[in-house]
């Protein structure tokens, strides 16, 4: 390897740069188009060369044309609501599977496992009937409900708890601490990395989700960002509105993109873990 370092290495680097450029070009193009003034016309809209005076006009139009503020709020409510309930359900279940012994534990464990295979999107039709029966149709809790139990989160927390030393809990138990105090004051603070990894995967999944909210939500006031963006895309006609749509797409992607760039290591680790466990 060391012997033939120079020419082939340079060629490889050039090839990789070209592929990376190709991979990034949809985003580069979106970025450029979102700052391109409308007067540039649709003929040159595909140009990747920023030969214009940047404008914020497109962002202003995007924010005006859809109820973006409302969509942000709805998406935020869904994402935070799902995560808050999940944190409780997966911590409790993870603790039970990691630290307690009881009859039927293996059977129940497999009962959880099934959710990794029968992912909610496959069951949209019957779940919609259930949501209607529960009078949750066209509500944000209806969008959240199928995700309140998470097999992935339960396994992740179980693994996290299993990896923790038992000394602290035993000391607390001898001092007479009840189980909830042990979970809350002893285990959860040490399990924070596991919870954060789960939170990253959960937030990303629900920020990006589309099909299920599309089925549950009918009134414009309850729409989430992805539904708004899809309607916006289908309403766009030809190249003329590309600038506004590019700006809108960036607005939808921005929060996760910023978080990712700030916490890259954590994101990557969480996603690797999410795949390996289910």
């Amino acid at each position, binding site marked *: 390897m060391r012997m033939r370092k120079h020419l082939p290495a340079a060629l490889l*680097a050039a090839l*990789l740069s070209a592929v*990376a450029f190709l*991979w*990034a070009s*949809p*985003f580069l*193009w*979106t970025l450029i*188009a979102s700052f391109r003034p409308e007067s540039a016309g*649709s003929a040159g*809209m*595909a140009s990747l060369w920023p030969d214009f005076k940047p404008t914020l006009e497109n962002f202003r139009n995007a924010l005006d044309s859809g109820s973006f503020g409302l969509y942000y709020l709805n998406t935020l409510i869904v994402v935070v609501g799902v995560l808050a309930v999940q944190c409780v359900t997966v911590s*409790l*279940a993870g*603790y*039970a*599977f990691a*630290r*307690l*012994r009881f009859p039927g534990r293996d059977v*129940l464990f497999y009962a959880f496992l099934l*959710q990794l*295979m*029968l*992912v909610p*999107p*496959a*069951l*949209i*039709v*019957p779940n*919609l009937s*259930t949501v209607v029966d529960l009078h949750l149709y066209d509500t944000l809790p209806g969008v959240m*409900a199928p995700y309140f*139990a998470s097999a992935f989160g339960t396994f992740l927390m179980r693994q996290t708890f*299993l990896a923790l030393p*038992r000394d602290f809990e*035993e000391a607390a*138990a*001898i001092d*007479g601490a009840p189980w909830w105090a042990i979970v809350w004051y002893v285990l959860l603070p040490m399990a924070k990395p596991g919870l954060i990894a789960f939170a990253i995967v959960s937030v*990303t999944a629900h920020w*990006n989700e*589309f*099909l299920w909210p599309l*089925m549950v939500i009918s009134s414009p006031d309850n729409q989430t*960002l992805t539904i708004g963006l*899809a309607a916006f*895309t289908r309403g*766009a006609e030809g*190249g003329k509105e590309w600038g506004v*749509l590019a700006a809108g*797409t960036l607005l*939808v992607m921005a929060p*996760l*993109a910023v978080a990712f760039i700030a916490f*890259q290591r954590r994101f990557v680790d969480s996603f*690797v873990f999410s*795949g390996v466990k289910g």
Partner: protein
Amino acid sequence: MQRRMSLAGTTGVLDGIQAAAVPVRRRRLRLLPYALLAPSLLFLVLFTYLPVARVLVESLYDKPHGTGAATTFVGLGNYAKVLADPAFRQAALNNLIYAVGVLVPTIVLALAFALAVQRSTRFSAVLRTVFFFPSLVPLVAAASLFFFIFLPRVGLLDYYLAKIGLHGPNWLGDSDVALWSVIGLTVWKNAGYYMLFYIAGLQNVPRDTIEAAMIDGANAWQRLRFVILPALATTTAFVVVIALIQLLTNVDHVIVLTRGGPSNATNLLLYYIFQSAHENFEYGKAAAATLMSVAVLLAISLGSMRVMERGARGNG
């Protein structure tokens, strides 16, 4: 396997201590595990088990929408109807082509990317970010981007093809091409995600085996073919399974870009289900199709468990 072992190995040290200290609490503690699992189980029953039972029953009935007609038992009638529906057959065939068409290039690219960026240099870090980034954006947003990439004449693709004197087809409007355009989008979206697993997998390939192969005079290709690839067999099995599940349960881009068209060319199973229920209000058909896709998902997962167990044993 590891999971089962650790399950059996967990002894209730805590239980023992508490039993000695407070006998009354011990009895209440016996119900504690079930109480802790109850919230999760409630939602698992409501949204994973009940729906399966529900489609099982609903698929046997004909429930006409909006006509006020009574629900009638039709036995396997809905299955017969679905199987005879040309749109369903097309969707099933498309999904198969889509799955293979996405799977092969994504896995090759994911592995190539992982091999290219595994060293911890600045350049590699930038490349990793670039390749991974598409998997972080909503599929709907990716569809919006590609809507304009595929736009006839003025879109990114046609604009640059024209510069080198080529003339592209109507990417989303031509029924011979549309599915491949959707496949292209999906490859771009997913390859970086699977790259992460290969990067993690490559860290577990024993360094001394690779060095031994080098000392024996194996060239880069031989090292890849005979040392690295076999060591990554479990990773590949994992990636194939999560990819297949993803390819059966993600149709956001189809909804935004093509609505299954032109003439069903990009109709996929889940889109067919969505359309039957949400647009045509044919619940019996939607239920029957859902149950078939559930069966496929279970088959993939159960099949993969056996493959992975064998893989784990093979790797020692």
